[in-house]
């Protein structure tokens, strides 16, 4: 007897569609988790060693934190950025243009918004987990654990969600895979440096400090620090709202442009 396909519910986002796309990612992850985990842990370790011991010896403290505390919390944002935006840019492009995976998935009961949403939420979940790696590494180097740090996976996942959608959108607007070099240099690197990860922005001209308010990564860094060292409820609420707004905007852009690319 042939199995019967599950009926569609007509919901805007169907969980069954998400489950299907996640099933694909999960089975691939079973093959690739070693290398992913290795780079997610080794990279922040190198940053912490280099900056912590190199610069940390020269800098007694920043904003009242030791340099390891400052960089350890800041590099959470770096890990989130790398695991979400780059993965989304490259994987989305390759699956859409070279492997034709998306064309194949779109003949199943999954539509473009579910496909992009499922892939972004998968990257967000990964960012939530791997975003904690720098924190754990920093603890080895003297970062004191705190209860607030339990919020870090959620901060990382929320940030990762926005950046995953952003990466998908970038992959849909670039003319070729080589264009990612321009995007990395002109967009991602400034975002990454002007987020208060390795140094505070207080010495920059006011215009740069204002611009930083529009950098989602900046909000992520602030939230992670406050989660680790003490919440600032009013400011933190705004940081969370900024990240939510970013995720919605990026989701809108990604789904709209992906649909243009995938549906004639």
């Amino acid at each position: 007897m042939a199995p019967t396909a599950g009926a569609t519910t007509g919901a805007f986002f169907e969980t069954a569609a998400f489950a299907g796309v996640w099933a694909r990612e999960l089975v691939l992850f079973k093959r690739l988790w070693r290398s992913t985990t290795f780079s997610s842990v080794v990279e922040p370790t190198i940053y912490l060693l280099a900056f912590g011991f190199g610069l940390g010896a020269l800098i007694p403290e920043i904003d009242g934190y030791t340099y390891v505390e400052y960089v350890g919390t800041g590099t959470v944002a770096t890990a989130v950025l790398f695991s979400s935006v780059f993965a989304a840019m490259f994987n989305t492009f390759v699956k859409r243009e070279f492997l034709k995976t998306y064309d194949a998935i779109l003949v199943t009961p999954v539509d473009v918004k579910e496909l992009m949403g499922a892939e972004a939420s998968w990257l967000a979940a990964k960012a939530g987990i791997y975003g904690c790696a720098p924190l754990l590494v920093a603890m080895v180097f003297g970062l004191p654990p705190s209860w607030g740090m339990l919020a870090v996976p959620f901060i990382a996942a929320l940030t990762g969600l926005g950046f995953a959608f952003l990466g998908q959108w970038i992959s849909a607007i670039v003319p070729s895979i080589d264009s990612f070099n321009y995007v990395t240099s002109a967009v991602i690197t400034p975002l990454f440096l002007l987020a208060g990860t390795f140094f505070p922005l207080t010495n920059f001209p006011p215009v740069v400090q204002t611009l930083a308010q529009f950098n989602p990564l900046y909000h992520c860094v602030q939230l992670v620090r406050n989660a680790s060292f003490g919440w600032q409820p009013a400011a933190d609420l705004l940081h969370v709202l900024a990240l939510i707004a970013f995720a919605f905007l990026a989701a809108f852009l990604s789904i709209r442009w992906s649909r243009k690319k995938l549906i004639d």
Partner: protein
Amino acid sequence: MSTPSPAIVMHDVVKRFGDTVAVDGLRLEVPTGQCMGLLGPNGAGKSTTMRLLTGQAHPTSGTIEVLGLPVPKRSKQARARMGVVPQEERPEDQLTCREQIRVWATLFRVPRAQRAAAVDRALAIAKLSSRADDRIKTLSGGMKRRLLIGRALVHGPELMLLDEPTVGLDPQVRQELWSLIDDLRNSGVTVLMSTHYIEEAERLADSVAIMNHGRVVALGSPMELLTAHAGTEAVEFYGPPERLAEVERVVAETGLPTRRNGPAVSVLRAEGLPTSVLDRLGQGTRRAATLEDVFVLLTGEDLE
């Protein structure tokens, strides 16, 4: 008893890409339980037609119904009940056959309790049971194509769309795939298959729709198409170019169609060729009319 409604109905469908008209007023009905071949040269609009049926292209005008559902509006519901074998996809090399099909079982929402059995059944249909746990990168081209067919069948679809299922495969591997598609049709699944191999359409299809410039120019069983357009016999004349030109000139007076066929001229519907003409032209080689004759007559294009 009423006859079941057609699996696919396309009514006056137009699809433009900017100034290019890919599909130009297409009318097509695929009866439930049939295997229909969509035969046409490259650029005839076959792939666009396939994408229109899966909601991956939206028509500029016209209406489409798949399994009784309006498409693209309710394409998702239709897709849950159909299987599609795309032409270009490259499945993930690192996965095993079983893993790949299992992912598709989840995408097609096969209930968890039935998933393992559905995967085994799909592997058996694709004749890949013995390779179930081998990685896809170790499979031959023909096996990969069978995997894609098995994958598309995992949820027991009522309708299968196959886009150029054997393109780029060796002749003996094509035979294997053909028997697989035969089995499908025999099990009651409606099949729409695009191809530009005449032999494939002739061998597999209950009916053939010949497409050219975005529309169906002829439709019928291979036998009906032959009778309607190419008759039963063709006569081929060989010789130097002057001789071929002379044959064409003489036959043109009779109103019978001719086509150049490599080093020969084929006179079609040759059963109606007057003996007086044959006497003038001398000895030709008689052969049975083929679907290729019909195709070339209707599209003006030579095929593989």
